[in-house]
Structures are given as C-alpha cells and as structure tokens.
C-alpha cells in the first residue's frame, strides 16, 4: 500500500469513528451501541498489549490479570485517596508495568508453552488475590465508583465532569476511541521503527539477536511492561465505565479472548488485535440467537477460521493484493 493510500484510509477511519458513528447512532436512536463500541475499543487496547508479547515470540494468556490490577488500582485511588480518575488512568498503567517487570524477570526466560502456562495461572492468582487482600474488599468488590470528574488547565475546562453530562455514554465512547487511536498509532510507529525489527529478531532467534548485541532480557521486559501497561489502562477504563470492579471482572476466559483476538486479526499486523476484537465481539453477539449452541458454533467457526487463515483475517487483504 502506498503512503498516500494509507493516509487516506487513516483519515477515513478517524472520520467514521469520531463523526460517522455518533451521527449514525443519533439517527437510529440505538444509543446502546455506544456501550458495545466502547467495550470493543477498550478490549482492543488490552488485546494490543497481548499482541506486543506475541511480537517478541511469547504466548501471553495472562493479560486479564493486568486488566484486573489496573481496574483495582484506579478504583482504589479514586475511592480511598480521592485521586482524579484522569490521573489514576496513567498510574494504573504504570503500576501494572512495574508489577510486570517483577513478574517478567523470572518468567520471561521461559518460552513457548511454558511461558503460556505460567501466564495462564496469573489471571487466577490475580482473582484470588483480589478476594483475599483487604484493600480490594473481597468478593463484594468496589462499587459506586464516581464518574470521572472534570479536568481544568489554566482555568479552561478540558474535560467536563462526566456526572454533569446528559450523555456520559457518548463521553466514554469518545474517551475510549481516542485512547484506542493513540494506542494503535503508537504501536504502528513502534513496529515500523527499528524497535519493531529488534522485536522481530527476538521472535525469530534470541541467540542470534544477542550475538548481534541486542540485550534480549531488557527488550523482553520492555515489551512485557508495555503490554501490561495497556492492560492496566484498559482495566481502569472498564472500572470507570461500570463504576465497579470485582475479582471476577476479568477471568481466565477474558485472558484467552484477548489472545484469540490477536490470533483472529493476525499476529503479523498491527491492526490485527483491533479487527479481531471487533469481529469476535460482534460474532459472539450475533450467535446469541442460537441459544445453547452459541459456544459450540462460535468455537467451531473460530477453529475453522484459524485453519483456513493461519495468519489472521488481515492476511486476506495481502493475499488478494499479491494475486494482483
């Protein structure tokens, strides 16, 4: 794809997300869609984190743990310490990144299925911790979290108090898609810079990478911290929207879904996790009519898709291109 075409597509995407969708929803009156699309945007951010760990050659099935952690960090800071939500958002991400460094130091030495298994247990560990630690309020969780307050810089209100808005759903939608756009733009830049090449070198052959001077331990930690940062941000946003967080807010099933989103969209493409989340989320909803067969049909389609398109949905585009 040429640079110009990419720019046009990017602008078109922004127009659809920021103008088209709100107009369409206003016209059809389906304002419930805001919640759905906000969820997709946030889930795709969390999945983007998982995608980064894939990019350095690690299968990460533990992202739910960091989403949960991020949610709690933000909720506790808001409720107990009265910190503004907008400040807790980056703090939640940073806290998750720091924790992931501590966890990553030992476990990132593992590869393949071993790393995957350890991360799988992380989500469960996080849930049990949330049940046990006093500050999280156990199974009752943290509820009635106030909506995000206003942000004022030099007397100018940049973000209004969400509680005073007639339609906080719209505000959350704009917040979520803005974060999503920033996240994926950053990811795109990362992958297309030298850093992306270094990550790829790690993915393909860590020994060779270290022989050309790449500090593989540092790069792995960096990637994992970035991944967990995104998980924390997404989790904090979810806690703010639902105004609550419970130990079961993010479970192993969620962690698996984050991974599936990446697989489905395509591990080789930056936008893979976004498309994967969108398709998976709406696919699941569409199959709601089928009742008890929902999971069966859903799983079968997923397996079939992965067999037919091992490189994800986005590989269709490339294939048709290479055929002319």
């Amino acid at each position, binding site marked *: 794809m040429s640079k110009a075409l990419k720019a046009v597509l990017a602008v078109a995407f922004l127009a659809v997300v920021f103008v088209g969708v709100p107009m369409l929803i206003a016209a059809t009156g389906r304002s419930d869609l805001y919640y759905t699309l906000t969820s997709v945007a946030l889930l795709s951010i969390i999945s983007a984190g998982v995608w980064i760990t894939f990019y350095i050659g690690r299968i990460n099935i533990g992202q739910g743990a960091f989403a949960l952690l991020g949610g709690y960090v933000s909720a506790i800071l808001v409720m107990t310490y009265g910190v503004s939500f907008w400040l807790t958002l980056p703090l939640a991400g940073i806290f998750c990144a720091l924790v992931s460094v501590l966890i990553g130091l030992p476990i990132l030495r593992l590869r393949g299925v071993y790393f995957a298994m350890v991360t799988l247990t992380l989500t469960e560990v996080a849930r049990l911790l949330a049940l046990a630690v006093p500050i999280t309020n156990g199974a009752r969780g943290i509820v009635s979290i106030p909506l995000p307050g206003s942000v004022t810089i030099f007397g100018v209100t940049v973000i209004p108090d969400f509680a005073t808005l007639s339609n906080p759903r719209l505000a959350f939608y704009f917040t979520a898609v803005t974060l999503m756009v920033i996240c994926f733009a950053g990811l795109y830049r990362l992958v297309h810079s030298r850093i992306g090449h270094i990550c790829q070198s790690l993915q*393909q052959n860590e020994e060779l990478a270290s*022989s*050309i001077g790449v500090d*593989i331990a540092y790069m792995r930690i960096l990637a994992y911290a970035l991944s967990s940062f995104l998980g924390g941000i997404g989790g904090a946003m979810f806690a703010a929207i639902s105004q609550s967080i419970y130990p079961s807010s993010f479970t192993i099933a969620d962690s698996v879904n984050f991974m599936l989103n990446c697989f489905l969209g395509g591990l080789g493409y930056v936008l893979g996790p976004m498309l994967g989340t969108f398709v998976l989320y709406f696919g699941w909803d569409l199959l709601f009519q089928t009742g008890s067969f929902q999971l069966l049909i859903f799983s079968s389609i997923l397996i079939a898709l992965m067999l037919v398109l091992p490189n994800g949905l986005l590989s269709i585009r490339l294939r048709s291109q290479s055929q002319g």
Partner: protein
Amino acid sequence: MADILEVSALTKRFGGLVANNDISFNVRENEILSVIGPNGAGKSTLFKLIASFLSPTSGEVRFRGKRISGLAPHTVARMGIVRTFQETTIFKTMTVRDNVIIAHHLRSRANLLGFFFATKTAQEDEKEFARSADEIIDFLGLGHQRNEIASNLPHGHLRALGIAIGLATNPTVLLLDEPFAGMNHDETRRALDIVRGVRDRGVTVLLVEHDMPAVMKISDRIVVINFGQKIAEGTPKEIQENPQVIEAYLGAEDASIGM
C-alpha cells in the same frame, strides 16, 4: 604483535562430561587462528565460552587484559567479540538486506526512544546502516539476492549471510564456526577469499573448520583439541608434522590432515 585474547585454563563441564579441559592459548591481533579437532572434541563449546554464551566451570577469557568470562553475550558482543553459529543461523523471514541491517544494531547512536520518534540521529543511523549493509552484501557476493527472503537462499549463500551478519556488527574479533560446511569447491574458494578480506579489514578471525586443505591454506596459526584437551598449537606446517595430531586424526577418522 600484541595478544588480543588470552584463554587461560578454560574448563567446561556438562555434568560428568568435560567438554573443555584446561585449555590455554593466546590470540594475536589481526591473525587468522583456526581451532581444529575431531567431531565432539569441544570446538564449538570453546567458541561459546569465548563469546560468553556459556560460563566456564573454571578458567577465564581475557580480552585486551579485561576478563570477559561471565558477562552477558550481548555485552561481549558490544565489546567487539562476535560469533557466528555452526548451524546456519539467520533471521529466516526477513530479507537478506534486513538481516544485515538489523545486525548493525550495535552501531546505533540513537536509543530506542530516538528510533521511535525518528530523531535526526536515528535517521542518520538508518541511512548509515543501509549504506553499510549494501556494501557488506556486495562484498559477500549476495548483491543480486538482497531483497530475497533469507530462508529461500541456497545453503552456500546462507553461510555467507551468516558471515555478513557477523561483519555488520563491526567486530574486533570474529569467531566463525564451520563457515565452509556444506560448500562445494568453488564456494569454499570464494569463502576463503572472503575470510581473508575480513582479516584485511583489520578483524581478528577465529575459525573452526573441518575442511583441512582450507584450514592449512588460510590459517596463520592452528590450535588442535581432542577430547576437550589442547594437544598442539603452531603454524600449519608445524601442525601437519606433529605426530600427536596425526594420531588423533587417524584414530578418529580417515580424514587426512593436510594436502
């Protein structure tokens, strides 16, 4: 000539197996030193110890007087000691050119953030890497394949790419583990020229190789190991006439030593 590497009393045990046993020798600046010995003698282990991919059980390696044993491999690589692998080791899904460009990583002046924001230094780095990569690719005769995906290359060219990756790091000491394996006569002759060319760029070359005629032709000096022990060290001529070496080789296999 000054000694650039000192290998002293290097021992490596894998459980009960002693892969390297009390090996000592020095490497002189800008020479081609070959390490030979029968299969399983411990040559690759020795290279891994020198490049710090393994830590010695005892003994040490010093580079310009400074101990490097026990440091992380990327740290040793940054000091200028770079190893290529016995197995053809490349970044398979990248193009030849990208393989060589990424191997310039050590030379970056910009840091990761710099590359993310494409600062001026980072852009200059990128330009310089691309230029240097093309030069190395041409030097190794891979020019017509620069945009080929690496895994599609024929075997002989893969070996050349392995050397190109090593060269791109701008090494002071380059350790080549069986660079001529699987090459035919013509390819070996070309590869010999390349290794000489590398040395003429000022690089000190350590070579592990089973191709005896090639080793005899190219080496300044040779170290022979057998069952993990150094049994001889000297010029190609001295090695060919050494009765212990002849015995080790006749005992191990039919391969004749020398020409």
